[in-house]
C-alpha cells in the first residue's frame, strides 16, 4: 500500500442554491519520496484538492465521499485531535502567497517554535535550536536575527524560504505545496523551487506540487494529474503525458506553452474559459471548448454532450475522454480483426 492513497474523493460546498461539486471522483496515490504534480487552470479544484487531503477545507466545504488514507489511517474519518497530529507534523503544507501566510504580529521564531511544541515535548530552547538549523538549511542569510524578526521585515522570497523551513521542521513524510512560487518574483521562482526540490530529495520527502506551470511539473515530478472543473481528466507518468498527451485539454495546455508557438505567430490558446462549478455543461465538462468533438464524418459525437466520460487506460495513463475511448476501441477492433 502506498504512503498516501486517495480514493474517489468527493468534495462539495453547501451553498444556499444547493451543493456545488468542487471535486468529483479524485483518486491517486503517492509513494514515499515520490513527486506528484497537479496541474490545471484556476478554478479547476487544485487548491481544494490540496486542502481536502488534510481535511482543511473551510466551511461550507465538506468531504462528501471517498477516502484519504495516509500510512494506513483514513484521514477524513479521523477526529480533529487525531488530524492535528498529522498536520504540520507528518504532512506539512506550503501556501501560495508568502506575504499572507505568516502571521504579521508574531515573530518568525514564535511561529516556528509553536509548531514544534505542538508536536513534540521539547523545551523552547531546543525548539529554537531546531528552528535555527532549518533556517540554515533553507540558506537564509543571518538566521539568528531572523528568529526575532517579524514577517514585514522580510522579502517575499525570504518569507517563502521560512515557510519551507517550517514545512521541514518536523521532518514530514509529505509536503503539499500549493503553487509555492506563483506569488514570487520571476527571478527567484527558480531558486526557491530548486531549494524545495533539493531539500525534499535530501530528506526523502514526498511532494505534491500544485501548479499551473507545466514546465516545472515536467521537470520535477514523476507522475501528474491534469484537472478540469473538479475532475481529473488525465493522469499517469509525467513524461508520457507531456510527450504524448491524450486528452484534448492536456494537448491544449501543452500547445499553449509559449515555446510551442511558431515565432512571429500568435500564441496558441484554448478558446473559451473554465465553466462555473455550479453550472457545468452536460456530458463532458470540456466539450464546449473541445476541438475534437466532431467525428470523422463531421457530425458531433453525441456522447460528448450527453455522457460524462469514464476513465480509459491508455498505456500507463488514464484518460477521461470519449474521443480517446473511441480511438482505442477502433484500434482494439482492428487488432482483433487482423
Amino acid at each position, binding site marked *: 500500500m502506498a504512503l498516501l492513497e486517495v480514493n474517489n474523493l468527493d468534495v462539495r460546498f453547501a451553498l444556499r442554491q444547493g451543493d456545488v461539486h468542487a471535486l468529483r471522483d479524485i483518486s491517486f496515490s503517492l509513494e514515499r519520496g515520490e513527486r506528484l504534480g497537479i496541474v490545471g487552470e484556476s478554478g479547476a479544484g487544485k487548491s481544494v484538492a490540496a486542502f481536502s487531503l488534510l481535511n482543511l477545507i473551510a466551511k461550507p466545504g465538506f468531504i462528501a465521499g471517498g477516502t484519504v488514507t495516509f500510512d494506513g489511517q483514513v484521514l477524513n474519518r479521523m477526529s480533529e485531535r487525531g488530524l492535528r497530529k498529522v498536520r504540520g507534523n507528518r504532512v506539512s*503544507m506550503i501556501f501560495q502567497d508568502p506575504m499572507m501566510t505568516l502571521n504579521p504580529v508574531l515573530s518568525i521564531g514564535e511561529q516556528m517554535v509553536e509548531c514544534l511544541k505542538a508536536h513534540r515535548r521539547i523545551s523552547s530552547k531546543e525548539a529554537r535550536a531546531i528552528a535555527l538549523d532549518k533556517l540554515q538549511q533553507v540558506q537564509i542569510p543571518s538566521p539568528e536575527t531572523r528568529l526575532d524578526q517579524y514577517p514585514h521585515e522580510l522579502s517575499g522570497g525570504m518569507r517563502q524560504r521560512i515557510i519551507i523551513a517550517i514545512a521541514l521542521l518536523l521532518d514530514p513524510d509529505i509536503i503539499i505545496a500549493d503553487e509555492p512560487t506563483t506569488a514570487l518574483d520571476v527571478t527567484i521562482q527558480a531558486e526557491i523551487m530548486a531549494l524545495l526540490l533539493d531539500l525534499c530529495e535530501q530528506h526523502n520527502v514526498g511532494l505534491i506540487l500544485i501548479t499551473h506551470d507545466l514546465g516545472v511539473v515536467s521537470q520535477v515530478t514523476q507522475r501528474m494529474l491534469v484537472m478540469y472543473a473538479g475532475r481529473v481528466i488525465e493522469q499517469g507518468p509525467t513524461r508520457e503525458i507531456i510527450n504524448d498527451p491524450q486528452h484534448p485539454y492536456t494537448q491544449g495546455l501543452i500547445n499553449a506553452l509559449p515555446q510551442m508557438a511558431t515565432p512571429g505567430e500568435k500564441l496558441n490558446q484554448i478558446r473559451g474559459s473554465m465553466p462555473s462549478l455550479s453550472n457545468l455543461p452536460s456530458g463532458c465538462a470540456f466539450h464546449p471548448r473541445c476541438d475534437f468533438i466532431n467525428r470523422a464524418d463531421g457530425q458531433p459525437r453525441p456522447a460528448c454532450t450527453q455522457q460524462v466520460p469514464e476513465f480509459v487506460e491508455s498505456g500507463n495513463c488514464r484518460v477521461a475522454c470519449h474521443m480517446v475511448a473511441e480511438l482505442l476501441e477502433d484500434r482494439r477492433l482492428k487488432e482483433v480483426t487482423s
Partner: protein
Amino acid sequence: MIAFLIKRLMHAILVMFVISVLAFAIQDNLGDPVQQMVGQSVPESEREALRERLGLNDSFLIQYVRFAKNAVQGDFGDSYFYREPALEVIARHLPATLELVFAATLIIVLFSVPIGVYSAIKPRSPISRLFMGISIIGISIPVFLTAIVLIQIFSIGVTVTLFPESTGWGAWLNAFFSTEGNMPSFGRGYDLVNVVGNWDTNLATWNGLQHLVLPAVSLASIMLPLFIRLIRAEMMEVLQSEYVKYARAKGISMRRVYFVHALKNTMLPVITVGGVQIGTMVAYTILTETVFQWPGMGLMFLDAINRADIPLIVTYLMIVGVIFVVTNTIVDLIYGLVNPTVKLTGKPA
C-alpha cells in the same frame, strides 16, 4: 519615542487652545452669571459693579487674553459658585468620574472580548444570535433610559403578578421575575476610603462597590454592544485570513489559533476605536451621573451650565480635551507594543 510624546504634548496644547476659544465664544449665550450669584433684592447698581469687578463688561478679546495669561500660569480662574479655583473644583470631582469610567471600561473589556470571540467562532449558534439581538437593542436605547430601567428593576424593585398565584408554577414564575430592588442608586455611598489627596475610592468597600454597579452598568450599556459587534466582525474577518488557515495546517491547537493567531490581529483595530471611545465615555458620564446623582465631573458640569459658571465650564471642557489627547496617546503607545509593524515617531504618518 520622545519625539512622539513631544508631538502629542503640542497636540494637547493646541486642543486646549481651540476648546478654550470655543468655550469663551459661547459664554454670552449661557445667561447672566451675576443673576445666579446674588439675591433678587440686590439693586442693579450693585450688580453692575459686580459685573465690572468680574470683568464681564470687557470685550471678548480682552476677557480671553486675561484668561489665557492666567491659564498659562496654571490659574484657570475662580468658579463663580464655589468661590475657589475652578481647577480645584474639578480636581475634587475628577476621581469619582474616573472611577466610574474605569468600572465601565472594565465591564466592557471583561464582557466584550469573550462574547465577541465566541459569536465570531460560532456565528450560527443560538447563543451568538441571542447576544447579537441583545446588542442591537443595547445600542439603540439611550443611556438615560437604560439607567432609569435599571433603577426601576434593581433599586425600586418589580413585583410581577402576571401569572396565577394559586398554581405552584405561577407563584414560582412571579417570584422569578420579581426583583427585590435593594441596589443603591443615589450617590457614592457612605463607605468611601481615602487613597491619596482628594481621591476617595468606591472600589475598596462592599458598600462602595454596590453604589458603583448600576452607574457603571448603565454607562457601559452603549459601548459594550458596540464593542461586541466590532470584535465579532473583526474576528470573523481574521478567521478567513490565510495565516489562520496556515496556523491550522501547522497542526497547532484551535485554542492557540483563536486566542493567539486570530485574537491578536482582531484587537488591533479594536484598540484604536477603544481609545476614542474612552474619551467619549467621559462625556457620556454627564447623563449617567445626573441620573444617579454621582458626584463627579459630569454632574458638576451640568450644574455649572445651569449656574452659568463660565470659568468652571471652560476649565471642564479643556480638561476633557486633555483627557482625550492623553487616552489617545496611551492607546497609540499600546498599539505600538502590540503591532510590530508600527514604529512610533514624531513624523506625520
